[in-house]
């Protein structure tokens, strides 16, 4: 794993020396920020009304009312943003031909893959950390619960890890970044909405679709429940996609 660090650094630098990371951060923060603003404003109005109406105050909880929907929505926005972060990982190198250099050098494919993957995860982590300023802001004016917020971030981290793995895989299959982004987006969106048909797909298929869906597994995290089966779902998805990416890199050698 000697070569992991140099690749990681190089990849990270390429994110931050180009405008990509900043633009994606900026747009992401604006959208999430807007959702946070509208959520907290609406909740504040509800709280104000509840002063006159004790019935309304029952179960009025800032964690449930603001952060649970916020993090659920953040999952959807990630789905839009993540392909933009992952599309260039391999596609760019393939287009410019530098992939040959990487693959013919005495660097193992695993090191290339993990270096790039870790760099993308690091970029994503910074993005998540920036959104942590919203709950931090809320602790100044109210009292949100720490548990559900932490579990939401754990969920987002795992969710992002699997999204990035999918994006990496798709990027390794094409040399066109737009195709990589479009296909990744399509796959992520399908994984997200697949549970919608669970209600009419019959009991067996319905359960299967629910288990496949990335949304359903995130629901628990967003409400403050950490379940091992959800954790394992995301890890499973990530590892499987990374494994396929590795095979796809390898196939470059014998496909000729």
């Amino acid at each position: 794993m000697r070569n992991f660090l140099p690749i990681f650094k190089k990849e990270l630098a390429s994110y931050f020396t180009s405008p990509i990371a900043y633009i994606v951060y900026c747009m992401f923060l604006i959208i999430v920020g807007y959702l946070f603003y509208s959520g907290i404003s609406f909740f504040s109005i509800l709280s104000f009304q509840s002063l006159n109406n004790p019935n309304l105050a029952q179960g009025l909880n800032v964690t449930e009312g603001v952060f649970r929907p916020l993090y659920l929505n953040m999952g959807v926005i990630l789905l839009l943003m993540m392909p933009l972060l992952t599309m260039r990982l391999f596609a760019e190198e393939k287009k410019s031909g530098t992939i040959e250099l990487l693959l013919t050098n005495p660097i193992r494919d695993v090191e290339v893959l993990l270096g790039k993957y870790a760099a993308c995860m690091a970029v994503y982590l910074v993005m998540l950390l920036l959104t942590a300023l919203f709950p931090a802001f809320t602790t100044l004016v109210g009292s949100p619960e720490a548990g559900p917020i932490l579990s939401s971030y754990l969920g987002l981290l795992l969710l992002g890890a699997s999204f990035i793995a999918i994006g990496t895989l798709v990027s390794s299959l094409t040399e066109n970044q737009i195709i990589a982004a479009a296909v990744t987006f399509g796959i992520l969106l399908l994984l997200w909405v697949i549970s919608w048909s669970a209600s009419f797909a019959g009991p067996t298929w319905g359960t299967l679709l629910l288990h496949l869906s990335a949304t359903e597994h995130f629901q628990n995290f967003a409400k403050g429940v950490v379940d091992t089966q959800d954790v394992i779902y995301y890890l499973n998805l990530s590892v499987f996609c990374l494994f396929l990416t590795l095979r796809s890199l390898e196939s470059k050698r014998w496909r000729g």
Partner: protein
Amino acid sequence: MSARLRTVLWILGFLLTVGGAIAYVIKPLLTPVTSVALGLGLLMLLVNLYLNFADVRRFLGKRSTRYGGNLAVLALIVLAIAVLVQGLATRHNLRWDLTENKRFSLSPQTRNILKNLKKNTEILAFYRDTEAGKQSLKDLLEEYTNSSSRFKYRFVDPDRSPNLAKEYKVAAYGTLVLESGGKREKVESDTEQAITNGLLKVTRDREKTIYMITGHGEKQITSQDKTGFSAAKQAVEEQNYKVKELVLLREKAVPQDAAVVVIPGPSRDFFPEELSTLTDYIDRGGKLLVMLEPQVETPRLSKLLEDYGIEVGNNEIIDRLSRVFGADYTMPVVTQYARHPITANFGVASFFPSTRSVTPVKKPKTGVEVQPLALTGPNSWAETDLKRLRQGSAEFNEGSDIAGPVSIAAVSSVAPKEREDPKGLLFSGKKGPPKSGKARIVVFGDSDFAGNTALGISGNRDLFLNSLSWLAEEEELIAIRPKDQSNAPLLLSATEGRLAFWFPLVILPATVLGAGVFVIWRRRWSR
């Protein structure tokens, strides 16, 4: 064969096969056209394969094909492992609830009941998609399914599946129906306590029996008359109880399997022997529901009730207000209920067509706890001059009449004490020490409120059934303390409100963008 013909054969065979397969998927019937297309297509492909066997062999022998095949097999194996791991993880999962009040955790009682659940149970929640509380109910039911693989839930939109709603006799949005082994149990509340108790009832093997006493001109459970109890019987049976008649004179004791004994509006008094049978029953921890009628004298029965702390007034309630509802003066409306499990969360009015007062005695005997249950309105009173009332007039006389609100139903629970026996003849009799468990008695001043005509009105049915289930279910029903409401409202001041806008929407993104511009410019500069 020319190469061109082969290509045509390939394409035609492929198209026919795929087309036939698609047609079969859309309409899963082997019509002649589909089967011919499929057969012909496959045949063409096979013929082609045979004709091009050398090419095919060369292709299969190529290094890349072999590697590709290996890769496909490997990928399938890894996929199978992933599915296996996921399956194991789903079956043996651990869960941590990180919320402060553990609002996504079930109570230990519920978890215990679910762990011992022997029968498959499904709960149907008749909710519209937009129904308030749907999300929190879903959260709750999700926890149920997580604790037992035998428990399933399903949301049904009664507007979209009216037939299903009809089949399950669901009349209101937000109704839950538990179904297990052919039995159904309706739950009208979405709390954990209600659902778990419903679960207990629907999975209970032994049916509880409710005995209706006859022989004193009581209301008949077979009678379809205006005041008959056939509707009441049906309602009780829908709650998964058995209903039987009981002639006290024929029995030495109340049957062992009696969950509740009901006296539905007797028009003659009881014999002393019958009353001693009842007293024995109560002292053994029996449950008794008594529904009386005004202007019917039953002094011996009244005396028995008085022993257990409940005084039956010799009067009839007059309620001026009930006229607003288009009824007789003697049909009081009850909107005020005392705090009691029977009337918990009970907010609807109930109507009593002619009732007498039923009040707790001033000084109940030791071991007897008694409280009123339902009170008439402040404009009502208990008229004692029944003679004048029969002639059609009534007015409130201070002193003789009781001013409203008047209690028309009372509840008494009797501790299983040894019978008072001042002469020291304790247990000299037949039975030995009484069984443990408090006896419970509910008395209504009226029986017609549960008759065929009035049962469907407003809250009558619920009041009647709640009383019965409180009497019948005591040992099994569990009480689950509702979760502490974790109220965390949040009020933004004007400044904070502005900050909540500027900080996430402007300041933060601008900072990030500024950092980017700075980094990129510096790189250009340094070049």
